[in-house]
């Protein structure tokens, strides 16, 4: 009896060891994604007349919580599918059509907050209506906003600038071109309040964008300031002086032909000293200013600059009309923003510091974003457009930059300011 008890004890122990070993093996043999994923079926809807473009569109599905981006391509029916874990995703689509009379149609759409929830029964079907736009004539070529470091090892940020470029074969005129930044100053951690949830639960950014703090405009009577094909113009956003004397990593913004955002309503002399003599008569007009800020607050973290024309009643009349202003949805703040329809926008670029931020531009302006993180702060780095090699070749060597209204494709982080070259 005693012996048999010991044998039972030993057998039970041996069985326990074997079953534990098997459980360990089972873990590494299992597919952890077998449960807990949902299928996202994406259906691309092209504008009327462009249905034949459906195949091969690049679809990016970004998981903002971990920064992983999946790249898919649509089939002949304009469809693609992917198995995803629970979460909210950003789906962005960019496609180029066949040229029509020399103009290249661009199809873009970015859908934020695509929700894959554990209570979802079956697949999630997402119809993506692509917005039609054409490559622009006047584009933002470079934005320098992250600052640099001086010889004294102190950081410096009064040397920010933005560059506009004529990317077409025709002369562009800067006259009446307006410049501003979209609210909020930094890319938000929550979805922008200038958005809404559509009937199918997807977040949609409004088509009319809010300009914050100020609107600057190039002066001129219509053809006073031509920009030849392939020519660029630099606009100093703060101090238009030569910064390189004390800070070799910085730039000289006192160069003939450059422009500056300068107006005596901005009284902070560190940000806005009197512009250098080479910029005489190259001060942008300050069409509108909101609030009491003494310096033009262009973000050093994640700005969203935009250039546009106000075509109808004239820029000043449009701005002066209270119907064209709005307060921020969901707040009691009296701060007002000038609302600009996206169809007036010539170009805009959405800059993020981390991928988890939320967008401010609708897809028709910029379907995605370019990321310049904190590691790139104060090193003289810029976001700069990629060269479109194929288009450049066709243009006989005149540099043509990528313009797909999709900053993730169009821009890269440049190690130093291009105007230093």
């Amino acid at each position, binding site marked *: 009896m005693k012996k048999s008890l010991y044998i039972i004890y030993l057998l039970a122990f041996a069985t326990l060891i074997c079953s534990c*070993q098997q459980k360990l093996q089972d873990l*590494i043999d299992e597919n952890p994604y077998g449960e807990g994923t949902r299928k996202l079926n994406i259906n691309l809807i092209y504008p009327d007349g462009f249905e034949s473009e459906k195949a091969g569109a690049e679809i990016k599905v970004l998981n903002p919580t971990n920064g992983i981006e999946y790249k898919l391509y649509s089939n002949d029916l304009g469809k693609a599918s992917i198995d*995803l874990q629970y979460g909210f995703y950003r789906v962005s689509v960019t496609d180029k059509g066949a040229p029509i009379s020399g103009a290249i149609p661009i199809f873009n759409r970015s859908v934020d907050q695509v929700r894959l929830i554990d209570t979802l029964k079956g697949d999630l079907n997402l119809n993506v209506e692509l917005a039609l736009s054409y490559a622009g004539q006047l584009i933002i070529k470079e934005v320098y906003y992250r600052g640099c470091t001086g010889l004294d090892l102190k950081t410096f940020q009064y040397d920010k600038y933005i560059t506009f470029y004529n990317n077409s074969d025709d002369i562009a005129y800067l006259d009446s071109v307006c410049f501003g930044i979209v609210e909020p100053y930094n890319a938000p951690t929550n979805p922008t309040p200038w958005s809404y949830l559509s009937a199918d639960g997807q977040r949609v950014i409004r088509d009319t964008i809010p300009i914050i703090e100020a609107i600057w405009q190039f002066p001129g009577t219509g053809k006073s300031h031509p920009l030849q094909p392939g020519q660029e113009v630099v606009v100093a956003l703060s101090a238009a002086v030569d910064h390189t004397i004390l800070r070799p990593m910085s730039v000289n913004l006192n160069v003939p032909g450059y422009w500056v955002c300068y107006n005596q309503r901005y009284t902070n002399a560190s940000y806005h000293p009197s512009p250098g003599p080479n910029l005489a008569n190259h001060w942008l007009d300050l069409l509108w200013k909101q609030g009491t800020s003494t310096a033009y607050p262009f973000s050093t973290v994640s700005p969203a600059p935009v250039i546009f024309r106000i075509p109808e009643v004239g820029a000043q009349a449009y701005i002066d009309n209270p119907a064209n202003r709005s307060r921020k949805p969901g707040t009691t703040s009296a701060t007002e923003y000038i609302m600009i329809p996206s169809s007036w926008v010539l170009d805009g670029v959405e800059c993020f510091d981390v991928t988890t931020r939320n967008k401010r531009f609708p897809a028709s302006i910029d379907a995605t974003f370019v990321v310049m993180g904190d*590691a790139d702060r104060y090193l003289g780095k810029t976001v700069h457009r990629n060269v479109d090699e194929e288009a450049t070749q066709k243009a006989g060597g005149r540099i043509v930059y990528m313009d797909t209204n999709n900053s993730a494709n169009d821009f890269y982080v440049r190690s130093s300011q291009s105007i230093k070259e």
Partner: protein
Amino acid sequence: MKIKHKYIYILFALFLCQLAFSSQVTGQNKKQIKEKCLYHFDDLSRKQTWTDSYNAAGLGFIDFNNSSFIEAYMGKGDGALVKYNESDDNFNFGLRTASYKKINKTTFFGKIDYNNFRGQNMTWSGLIYPERYLLAVADSRPAEKRKESYKLSGGFSTPIATNLIFGAQINYETADLAKMKDLRHLTKLLDFEVTGGLIYKAGMFNIGANYYYRKFHEKVTFSKVADDDILYTGYLFKGLWFGMFENWTNDALNLSRPFTDVIKGGSVQVEFLKEKFKFHNEFTYKSQEGLTGPGADKAFSQSEAETYEYKGIASFEQDHIRHYLKVNANYSDATNYDKVTNQERIGGIYVTFYYGLNKAFSRRNFNLNGEYEIALGRYKCNPNWNLKAGYSYTAQTSISSIVNPLYYTQDVRVASAYGKVNKNFILDKGMIDLSLLGAYSSGSGIKQRESISENAVGINLDDVVATQVTALLNREYEFLTAGKFQGEAGFRYSRFVSTQNTAGSIYLDLKYSFTKAKELKYHDGDNAGVFYMALGYSF
């Protein structure tokens, strides 16, 4: 140099002979020494069948009336053969006391331990006990860390009816750990454990059951004090050293967060008694739930685990020879989930959207330990010779699944064996204990294997990259599986202190252990040594 060593060996051998001779002489006068002077608290406690049980009611079964000690201690560790988060140059000191005491039919147990620790070159963990969790927060700049901890235990066992004993015990630990350089962190620990149980004495059997509850909580707060633009990388590890690595800012990658785990469970015990033979068995089940983040719908991640434990102790105690066989086995299955939520401002109100739990990391672990011990000598509290040999086997498999459709598995098996011998010499006014330990451990397995989910149709995998600190993966795997020899030598001198009413001994305890590994690639050195000293009073 060799000659010098030779003299040392000769002197040591002569010293041992002298001790052996004197112990024979003094052995004849043992009656003059009160038995209490000979007590070794730890050894005595270890040779009970119920003191290691979760059921505090078993405290009543200790076979001595009372035993206590109070000691001041210090330790110094040097050498690079340490875990990834440990210091290669550390010092600690503390004060501790513990006691078993029977008053009438009630048995009490109490323990207090204060420890002050300073370690240099510490990094890769913001947590005090990172191995308890399935995810971790860390930075990569080595610096000094300081820790203060207090451990308190209190338990009792008392009969509440004929053959029925009730007992309860509380264990409590609190600690503060601070890193002294940017990127610095302050970590506060609170660990609370309570058990309560009953034992029914039924002839040749003691049958017990108890409830178990434990809550441990670590709150990590990262900060940067220096007013400079130096950027530090913060790490949020989610198993197998995969995770998120960014420049640390409270906005971009906020690593500060609480970690809270609650364990509930219970044990049943069956002890068989026959004359001098005891066979104690304990089966334990624990269910663990943990979360990080502020909690409720703001939790960042949550985990669950189940643990099954078995402890078996067989003892056969005769007058001059005592045998002990211990077998422990435990199996745990733990999974950590990313809790996917986000907040949106709708109509001026922040609304939290909940999406679901994504399995991020799973780990299964199996441990088996067997140990045989034989004690020779008249006194259980003070054997002349104590010999011990043990074997331990650990198997662990892990799977990381934070980047769909890729997943990564690891399989580690580690086996170790050890032997230890203790010799006690009784002198006129005191006694000496010498100990020697030798151990070897080695492991094998699969460091990491990448797999792709069968659902990954149509995804361009070139763009799907999981970020991992492979240096830590290599180091940890090497630490676990490398062949390691360990040796330890101990010396303890006790001076008897007796009065008419009290008996005890003042002792000085010295130990040095040395571990050396072979063929290391990912460590800065292949050995580590720890020196330990304690001065105390046993009574």
